[in-house]
């Protein structure tokens, strides 16, 4: 029995290692971050082994769930990177513009700022600029979320005499975009907080009622209440999302 458990454990650990190495290679996670995450996964796996009392079926389920959760990590880290790039890119462009106004070329300005990159987004941007902008790979990347940033840098690199104007125009466009994004985000954040508080209150009340009364005799009432609450949450979410611009 023990060899099955050991095999499952080894498979889980190797899968986690492979997933985290891939994340690190894609510059979605720092070296320290990937080591910390791996240690957490190791700890989870050993806790699972202890809790399941070496039961192979239970352990396989627990390791399977953890591996499935690991599969969602690339998506989550990419989302985090996207948000970081959205907020940091205007500042990065401003620094490049400043250097160019001081007389440096586009390429040397970028090199100067990204050569001392320490954060994950800076490392990611550096590798993307080196491969897609400076080495000019022929790959069509217009489908990716980052294409708007790199296309502009690529165009600036191809037209050095227009680079400064292009970057200034692009910075202006991003400023308008971030102003609108911030404002609509603030409004929706309030609604989301309200939704989370309501859910916690409801769940607390549900637990209280279930401990105070017999669930069996009030099953229909609880089900009706829960359905109403879920419908309310869905409607709330839909109202915040469905709006389209009229202008």
């Amino acid at each position, binding site marked *: 029995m023990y060899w099955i458990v050991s095999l499952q454990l080894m498979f889980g650990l190797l899968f986690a290692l492979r997933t985290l190495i891939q994340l690190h290679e894609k510059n979605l996670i720092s070296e320290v971050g990937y080591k910390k995450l791996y240690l957490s996964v190791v700890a989870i796996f050993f806790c699972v082994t202890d809790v399941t009392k070496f039961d192979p079926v239970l352990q396989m389920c627990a390791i399977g769930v953890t591996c499935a959760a690991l599969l969602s990590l690339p998506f989550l880290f990419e989302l985090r990177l996207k948000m970081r790039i959205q907020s940091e890119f205007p500042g990065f462009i401003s620094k490049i513009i400043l250097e160019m106004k001081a007389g440096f070329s586009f390429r040397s300005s970028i090199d100067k700022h990204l050569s001392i990159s320490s954060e994950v987004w800076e490392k990611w941007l550096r590798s993307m600029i080196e491969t897609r902008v400076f080495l000019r790979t022929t790959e069509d990347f217009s489908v990716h979320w980052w294409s708007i940033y790199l296309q502009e840098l690529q165009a600036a690199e191809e037209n050095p005499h227009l680079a400064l104007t292009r970057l200034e125009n692009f910075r202006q466009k991003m400023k*308008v975009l971030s102003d609108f994004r911030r404002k609509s985000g603030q409004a929706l954040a309030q609604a989301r907080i309200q939704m989370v508080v309501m859910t916690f209150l409801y769940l607390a009340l549900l637990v209280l009622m279930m401990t105070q009364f017999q669930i069996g005799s009030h099953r229909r*009432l609880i089900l009706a209440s829960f359905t*109403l*609450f879920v419908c309310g949450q869905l409607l709330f979410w839909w109202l915040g999302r469905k709006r*389209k611009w009229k202008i």
Partner: protein
Amino acid sequence: MENLAPPLSVVLQLQLEMENGHSFRESLRQMLRSHDENDFMKTIREWSVRKSHNQSTDVLVKSLTSPYRRTLLDLFERGWDGEPILEPLQSMEEEIRVAAQAELDQFIATLPFRAMIPLLLLQFPAYMLLLLGPILSDLSRQLGSM
């Protein structure tokens, strides 16, 4: 809600391309290639196809309900014919930005009231049902057995 009003997004993108030295047609082509797809972009795409085939675009323009989008397509018409439209485009950007700002402000102002609808119609009854339902049910059962 989309982050940026589609006409504003189109104007900014087109303006960016034209300020970078491209002609209107080249800028439009570039924008259609790289811009996110939305209902206004679909209209512009269709408009562009009709213009390339020398077909009338009147019906398409008249079908638009927003005066900003209509005016924008009218301006595109002039650009397609070779007129310089960068300056009018820059003036339009300001107008559209003000209108988008006003619409966003209105959306934010009415959001708390719209958020009350699910709260009053669905969530409040859900709370009441959970809070009073079992008590009233037990009470009625006890009264019935007396």
